[in-house]
């Protein structure tokens, strides 16, 4: 017994030593910039006006929160998150149900469906903007003209919706793959029994499939929300947040404030608001993941 205890203690110590580098690095990586962000957010710090220094109290927060662009940016952020979630969850379930049925060439269809996930955001943004949505040379414009319609300038007339479509296209495969994984663990016999009892396809979906998918749906919503709050590249290469501020999200607004307007104090205050919003979502995500973790 005594020898065993010593071995355990020894390995415990070794274990701590092995974990230490990761913990220390992550601590520095998160805590140092975060503390700096909090610090700057209470300081007067504008690179264009170096004479203005010192403590700003809550001024940066006050200016950021009362900036009319802030509220619209929050709405745009919510619209992107909710819009993309709606499209990807509903579309993803339909696609997963489709892929789960017997067919020829299933492997190829699967690759076709998941391909968008592997396209880097700047490529998907520019391909949609130019090759598809451009009002003169884009595919949609060509189609519209063939149908005798006037081409629609998507990114100018419906910038936010266009961005939602582009981002949803990129995330649809992720949702589909997760739903498909979940569907494949569905009890086939139960389905068959229900079918024998005369349950129609729709009621089988509502009473058997959908409850089974609940967990996967929650996971998709939580994880996508975390990524969607930080959508940046698709906006940067298509609309630049415009026209005006019509497609400026919170992430984009912070970038504009800090790196284009050189207002470090205001930008960091905006960054802190983004952190708080993300943390609310992360709180639920962590509980969900934690429940499934048997460490």
């Amino acid at each position: 017994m005594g020898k065993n205890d010593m071995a355990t203690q020894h390995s415990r110590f070794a274990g701590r030593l092995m974990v230490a580098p990761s913990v220390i690095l992550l601590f520095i990586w998160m805590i140092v910039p975060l503390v700096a962000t909090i610090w700057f957010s209470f300081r007067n710090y504008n690179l264009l006006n170096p004479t203005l220094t010192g403590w700003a109290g809550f001024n940066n927060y006050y200016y950021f929160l009362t900036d009319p662009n802030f509220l619209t940016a929050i709405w745009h952020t919510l619209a992107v998150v909710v819009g993309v979630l709606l499209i990807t969850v509903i579309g993803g379930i339909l696609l997963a149900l489709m892929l789960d049925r017997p067919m020829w060439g299933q492997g190829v269809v699967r690759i076709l469906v998941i391909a968008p996930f592997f396209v880097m955001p700047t490529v998907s943004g520019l391909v949609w903007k130019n090759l598809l949505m451009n009002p003169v040379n884009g595919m949609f414009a060509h189609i519209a003209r063939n149908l005798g319609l006037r081409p629609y300038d998507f990114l100018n007339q419906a910038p936010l919706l266009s961005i939602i479509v582009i981002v949803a296209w990129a995330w649809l495969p992720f949702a589909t793959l997760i739903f498909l994984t979940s569907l494949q663990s569905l009890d086939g016999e139960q389905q068959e029994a229900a079918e024998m009892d005369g349950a129609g396809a729709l009621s089988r979906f509502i009473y058997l499939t959908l409850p089974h998918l609940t967990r996967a749906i929650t996971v998709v919503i939580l994880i996508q929300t975390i990524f969607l709050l930080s959508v940046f590249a698709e906006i940067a290469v298509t609309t630049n947040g415009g026209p005006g501020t019509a497609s400026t999200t919170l992430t984009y607004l912070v970038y504009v404030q800090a790196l284009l307007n050189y207002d470090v104090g205001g930008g960091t205050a905006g960054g802190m608001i983004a952190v708080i919003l993300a943390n609310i979502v992360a709180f639920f995500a962590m509980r969900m993941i934690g429940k499934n973790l048997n460490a």
Partner: protein
Amino acid sequence: MARKVTASTKAGNTAVAWSIGLVISFPVLWTILMSFHSEGDAIRPPLAMLTSPWTFDSYGEVQTRSNYSLHFFNSVVISVGSTVLALIIAIPAAWAMAFVSGRRTKDLLMWMLSTKMMPAVGVLIPMYLGFKALGLLDTLTGLVMLMTLANLPLVVWMLYTYFKEIPGEILEASRMDGASLQSEIIHILTPMALPGIASTLLLNVILAWNEAFWTLQLTSSKAAPLTQFIASYSSPEGLFYAKLSAASTMAIAPILILGWFSQKQLVRGLTFGAVK
């Protein structure tokens, strides 16, 4: 499911699925097709473009006009370099947490994950100012370091879920047989852990290759990876559709191929084991 399926049902499913699959992947397929035509043909109506002569010119032009291979090289260095560094740091940690887990292991894992949930924009400004002060803006060193840390939580997590599946009994048995820790690692654990490490490597290279927040903010030219290079096409001069398509095709092709191998890991890695 052992249900009988008639050939006509299967044919119907196949037709629907293929059509939808082609619609979803259309932007990718169209980009690839367009990259093989001349600039003049690229802006013609779709059918006229498809029937115009095929050419590799755009690929050549992208390289001669903008040193494409430099940006490709940068993408490789950043994605592979940061993933390998993260693996070196994470393997011991994930291992210790999987095999000598203590009371705090779960808290530690959850804390690591929480760092991944921090929005990058929240720490953008200190990072930018710090990079500027240290002369790391637009350097591969800076970006590899940053991406290593950005990847680390996911890498630890993925490795942990894979290591956790290695049965502990095997280790005990080998210990009974008098195997030393070193031989235990070399002969027993490494072969069992390799598939998990490979999967983690694959998924993280893909994610790092496509990362487009930090790469856009912290690079401009000499350390710019493909994400940033492609972004330069957002302010075009003259005709550029075919060149944009060629540059895009080369940027996504390696990842589409790697991605094909990583479908399973994608679900596992990105849901942190919450959906299996």
